[in-house]
């Protein structure tokens, strides 16, 4: 007998041996393909599982979690009988290979995850990281990714309410494209991915199955890119947002009529994943007749049909009496729907093709009982030297002119600069419920037009901090997202995450991962926030160079009344500018050290989670009392960056004075700080004193410059020119400069 090609499919020797052991025989080619995709890192979480358990073990007491981890997305109670489901997921590797389609299908995939829970998707966000902004390959990847995120989300009619855009050399061969979707439903509408009820039909609906994305999860998401080797483009899926829009509307009508007992989207590992997960989560038995699957390409082998990652497909379990009604809804929306099998007695997943039984497996062994590795870990050897390299040694600006130059440099750096070039390509208005969107600290969406109830969301992931200390870095990212939700006036409620790391087979990377998970789980316990789900993306490295550990953390908050939301920009002259929180000299991992000196070293800023909680409570109270006219979180670039952003939002300056060392005041990245404006500073001070949050008066809004007494005087026009020129200079002329086109430049017939 010839040896089976398990190694080419990404299976290790012992994994193959285990499959033979489970089945008591050699797997068929199709079974082997199924196990290979489902046991891939992407689908099985085999390297991360042992660590992710902490999110459950250390979870705080909570009564807001309606559905926890393990389903397609967690579900959170936001009051008034409404529930919200949200999740962030990576599409890193496909976006590097084919930027537009990789990013577009990343959005499509996460939207289907949210839809699968029974929710109407209401908004998306994107967290993007690329190599150096001026690197030639960034000019290839970034415009395609942005167009893909926009092209898919805009066409689905989902507002893009925020995200991140950051650059670092470490992402040159591994851009990070993390997409978040949030959906809303009533409590009783929550759907689960399980196949129950013998005789119930399995219906595949949506797009036809083609040859795209075959083996995407095992080939792309679970292996390190090699400089050599064939082009991987055929493994990237191609998206059709129009089909997905119809799928969404059909699904919501199907849910409203209560026509399904279980539902699952087809994402990574396609039909293999959907059928085995549905069966495994249900009673165990399912039969599928593969000849009935509608194909785009009739030459596909059964293994290819089961592994295809063609987009815009869903799988539902439907009672026989409701099948006709289900199909009628699909017809109304021009969605192709086909009965491909049924739920059976017993505990086997069987698949027939051309009269032959080609799959006969226990589905749990495919979907939920894959290999689990407790991989070796080692604290990186470079870490001591890196942490000892304190930025205190770096030359600081010694004159007001130098300080002003550093201020401009930070604000004009690609990370600090105006992101309009990107966000202008995203529809933020569709659905008519967007209350705050980028460049605000958090996106805020109204979810009930009668009560004005709404939600806030923020995504943050500072990888410089995580490189210096992954435990602290994950916590700092959580704290920033938590603070960003709080400055909008919302009450933080729950957490999602997308953990982007290098190869788990490298002990130093595995240590980074374990530390980040431990840090996040510990901090969520202190802040009382449950982790509702998330995504792990490993093998983000080219050759033996891994990306900086990049735990991207999303925090969801709730607004009882979105009319109380607090924006980040200054609108009115004559208001008092206050700094909430305390500033220490903390420059490790700072934007200043990175931009001005190209330096990364020392320790990230200290984090006091109790102080963060007090600050968030204070911000919520001030928002409810209507005492704030603006609030803006301090993070990358410290006070210097925050002041510039608040002033440039509506073109209102300020005259300020900062005590102590002005350099530290402007560029330190101490945590737990927010700059606010108010017309009643005494009231804010009284409330802050009561809450135990330090307050420093900085000055008054007004004028057309940012003036810091004795330190800097930056005309807003100069500041805006520096801030807004960066991305257009790198990626193309902004459309704002498109003037009236002279007659005769377009065909006139």
């Amino acid at each position, binding site marked *: 007998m010839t040896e089976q090609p398990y190694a080419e499919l990404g299976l290790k020797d012992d994994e193959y041996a285990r499959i033979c052991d489970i089945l008591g025989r050699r797997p068929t080619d199709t079974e082997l393909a199924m196990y290979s995709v489902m046991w891939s890192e992407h689908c099985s979480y085999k390297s991360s599982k042992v660590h992710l358990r902490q999110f459950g073990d250390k979870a705080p007491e909570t009564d807001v979690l309606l559905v926890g981890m393990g389903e397609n997305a967690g579900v959170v109670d936001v009051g008034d009988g409404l529930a919200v489901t949200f999740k962030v997921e990576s599409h890193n590797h496909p976006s590097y290979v084919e930027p537009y389609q990789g990013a577009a299908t990343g959005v499509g995939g996460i939207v289907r995850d949210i839809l699968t829970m029974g929710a109407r998707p209401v908004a998306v966000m994107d967290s993007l990281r690329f190599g150096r902004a001026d690197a030639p390959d960034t000019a290839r990847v970034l415009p395609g990714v942005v*167009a893909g995120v*926009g*092209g898919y989300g*805009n*066409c*689905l*009619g989902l507002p893009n309410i925020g995200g991140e855009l950051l650059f670092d050399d470490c992402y040159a061969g591994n851009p990070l494209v993390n997409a978040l979707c949030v959906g809303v439903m009533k409590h009783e509408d929550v759907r689960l991915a399980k196949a129950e009820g013998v005789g119930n039909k399995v219906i595949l609906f949506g797009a036809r199955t083609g040859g795209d994305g075959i083996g995407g999860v095992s080939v792309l998401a679970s292996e390190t890119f090699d400089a050599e080797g064939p082009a991987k483009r055929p493994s990237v899926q191609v998206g*059709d*947002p*129009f*089909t997905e*829009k*119809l799928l969404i509307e059909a699904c919501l009508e199907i849910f409203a009529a209560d026509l399904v007992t279980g539902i699952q989207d087809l994402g990574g590992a396609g039909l293999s994943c959907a059928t085995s997960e549905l069966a495994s989560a249900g009673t165990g038995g399912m039969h599928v007749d593969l000849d009935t699957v509608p194909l785009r390409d009739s030459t596909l082998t059964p293994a290819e049909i089961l592994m295809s990652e063609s987009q815009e497909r869903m799988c539902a379990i439907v009672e026989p009496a409701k099948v006709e009604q289900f199909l009628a809804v699909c017809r109304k*929306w*021009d969605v192709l729907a086909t009965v491909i099998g049924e739920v059976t007695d017993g505990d086997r997943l069987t698949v027939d093709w051309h009269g032959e039984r080609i799959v006969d497996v226990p589905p749990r062994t495919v979907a939920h009982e894959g290999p689990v590795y407790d991989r070796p870990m080692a604290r990186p050897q470079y870490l001591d030297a890196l942490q000892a390299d304190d930025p205190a040694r770096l030359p600081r600006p010694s004159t007001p002119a130098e300080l002003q130059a550093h201020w401009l440099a930070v604000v004009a750096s690609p990370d600090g600069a105006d992101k309009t070039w990107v*966000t*202008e*390509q*995203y*529809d*933020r*208005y*569709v*659905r*008519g*419920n*967007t*209350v705050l969107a980028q460049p605000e600290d958090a996106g805020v969406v*109204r979810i009930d*037009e009668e009560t004005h109830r709404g939600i806030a969301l923020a995504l943050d992931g500072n990888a410089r901090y995580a490189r210096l200390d992954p435990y602290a870095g994950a916590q700092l990212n959580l704290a920033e997202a938590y603070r960003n939700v709080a400055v909008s006036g919302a009450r933080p409620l729950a957490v999602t995450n997308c953990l982007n790391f290098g190869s788990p087979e490298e002990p130093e990377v595995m240590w980074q991962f374990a530390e980040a998970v431990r840090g996040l789980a510990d901090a969520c316990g202190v802040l009382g926030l449950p982790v509702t789900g998330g995504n792990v993306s490993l093998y983000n490295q080219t050759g033996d160079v891994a990306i900086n550990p990049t735990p991207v953390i999303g925090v969801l908050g709730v607004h009882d009344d*979105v*009319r109380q939301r607090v924006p980040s920009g200054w609108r009115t002259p004559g208001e008092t500018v206050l700094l909430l929180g305390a500033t220490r000299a903390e420059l490790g991992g700072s934007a200043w050290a990175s931009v001005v000196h190209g330096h990364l070293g020392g320790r990230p800023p200290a984090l006091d989670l109790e102080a963060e909680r007090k600050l968030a409570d204070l911000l919520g109270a001030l928002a409810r009392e209507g005492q704030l006219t603006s609030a803006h979180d301090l993070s990358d670039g410290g006070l210097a960056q925050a002041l510039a952003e608040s002033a440039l939002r509506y073109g209102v300056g300020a005259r300020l004075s900062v005590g102590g060392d002005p350099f530290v005041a402007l560029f330190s990245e101490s945590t737990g700080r927010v700059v606010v404006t108010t017309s009643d500073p005494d009231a804010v001070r009284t409330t802050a004193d009561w809450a135990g949050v330090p307050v420093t008066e900085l000055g008054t809004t007004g004028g057309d410059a940012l003036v810091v007494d004795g330190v800097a005087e930056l005309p807003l026009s100069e500041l805006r020119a520096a801030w807004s020129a960066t991305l257009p200079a790198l990626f*193309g*002329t*902004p*459309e*704002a*400069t*498109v*003037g*009236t*086109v002279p*007659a005769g430049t*377009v*065909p*006139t*017939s």
Partner: protein
Amino acid sequence: MTARIGVVTFPGSLDDRDALRAVRVAGAEPVSLWHGDHDLRSVDAVVLPGGFSYGDYLRAGAIASFAPIMVEVVAAAGKGLPVLGICNGFQVLCEAGLLPGALIRNAGLHFVCRDQRLRVESADTAWTSEYAAGAEIVVPVKNGEGRYVAHEATLDELEATGRVAFRYVGGNPNGALRDIAGIRNEAGNVVGLMPHPEHAIDPLTGPSADGLGMFVSVLKQLTAA
């Protein structure tokens, strides 16, 4: 009595709910219309909403212009029914021949979402009577194919007969010829524009409430009649 204003949902319509909301906020009765029906459900006016009908396949608005409901809309518009086409709806009106010209890919080749200043050029249509001629309003624009083009003679005629309804002010977001953001037919019952008035009905969720005037205009005209 109030007026019934219909909003058509095509496969891929996105801003249909938003248009229905704007109709309701203006004080009229919103009525959903379905692309596959030959039935205008006795509405007093019709809005063709924004979105990507049929995924913008072939050309934006091209396939939707052949939908069964459009047969009824075209016939009723000929008899004076007020019709407003917003963004994709404007594209549909041009494809259906109710308005001249075409909308092509933005000059910058990117989708652009922006708070846009507009000048109301024609205040004597069914949809603009609430505005003063020459008034400036702020309404979101968001599209990838919003660059208005037409034959030179057509453009001259539109201008000479006062059929330019809205013009971009303070920057043209897409390279539209002569800064045209929206046009009207001769009778003034059919208006099409790329910007989205339904996203500017409440400063809480839009840049202004300037867009509400279009829905109030038609309501007042219908209830006065």
